[in-house]
């Protein structure tokens, strides 16, 4: 996890199990609170499977980070993952999305 200009950048490099997802969630929120970051970027470009649990946790992270007065952007979702989520009816309405981490940082810097 990196911190750049008040933005936390978490890049997920492995397939996520339920346990690592929970660890990621706690870790991110702790760091966000500690550093007072205004943005959190979760790069999921290496993730091939997002199940309903992970989708829910992404939404929870977004809502929790919002309470810390910061924004969350999920970046680099793969086409197959996007299609699967839509098929499952999980359209993550609360979550902001970006094409890549760079795009996400740009978005956070812009506003």
């Amino acid at each position, binding site marked *: 996890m990196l911190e750049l200009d008040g933005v936390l950048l978490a890049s997920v490099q492995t397939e996520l199990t339920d346990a690592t997802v929970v660890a990621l969630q706690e870790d991110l929120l702790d760091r966000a609170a500690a550093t007072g970051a205004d943005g959190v970027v979760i790069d999921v470009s290496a993730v091939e499977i997002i199940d309903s649990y992970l989708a829910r946790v992404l939404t929870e992270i977004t809502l929790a980070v919002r309470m810390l007065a910061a924004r969350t952007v999920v970046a680099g979702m793969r*086409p197959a*993952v*996007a*299609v699967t989520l*839509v098929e499952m009816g999980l*359209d993550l309405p609360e979550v902001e*999305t970006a*094409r890549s981490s760079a795009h996400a940082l740009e978005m956070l810097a812009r506003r």
Partner: protein
Amino acid sequence: MNDGAWNTPVSPGDDSRRAAAPNGSGARPHDGTALVAEALRSRREQLAQRWADATPFRAVYVAGRDAAVGAAHRLVDALAEVAGSGHCADPSAPGFERVRPQLAEMLAERGAAGATAAQLGAEVAELRHALLALVRDHASHEGGDAGDAVVAAMELVGTLRLVAMETVLDRDAGIIARQRQEILDTATPVLRLWDGVLAVPLIGTLDSARSQVMTEALLEGIVEQRAEVAILDITGVPMVDTVVAQHLMRTATAVRLMGATCVLSGIRPQIAQTIAALGIDLGGIRTRSTLADALAWALRHIGAPAGG
């Protein structure tokens, strides 16, 4: 002549001996099916010559009568095999398998010449005249029950007709499947309108299969081109109902999850009216009336130089 010599001494034994001879079926001797099989075998040449003049053969094998007779021979042999095995009513009888390719070829030729499926069926059914005349003749000579034989022959021709129709349907189904795939592959191009702007001009009815292909192609395009805006142009979609709207919503949502923005354009007044009347909520999608408007919005959104 020969019959007389057989019949005079042992009239009742005659039948049983005959039945054992040609096919060893042990069924009731000279029942209709066996008689038809026998007629087909012993009068193979005669029937083939007459069939060669019938439409399905004559019209297809225009190169020469020999070819038509040869094809007719093969059909007679196949029918003899079917009748011999006693499965006159079974379209999957082994005998038919041998002539399926030939039938398919003949019927395809007739179909290409403009014959409808109904006409093809009638043409195949016409073959029965020669067969029935021959079976009747054979029965009267051999002393079998002509009525049973005619019924069996009719059954056999009926099954042949069914087999012929199956080959026509198989061919048509193949053509339809191939064309459907071609339409799927060619009808959903993903165009790069500008650096970072993609468009998919949708033409024709949007069903689930097409919508899936379109979504996949669009998402792949977004990754490849690093596109920020994807425009779905529905100018060529004749009608939008709840199903189509749902497909569009899903595509737009998937595009959003990828981090790009989806714009729906080409909504004609009638379609806008229909969507409103159906109470479909396209709230999640940004819409523009024309592709040009959508492109103008996209250029502003990505911050492209004005006037471009």
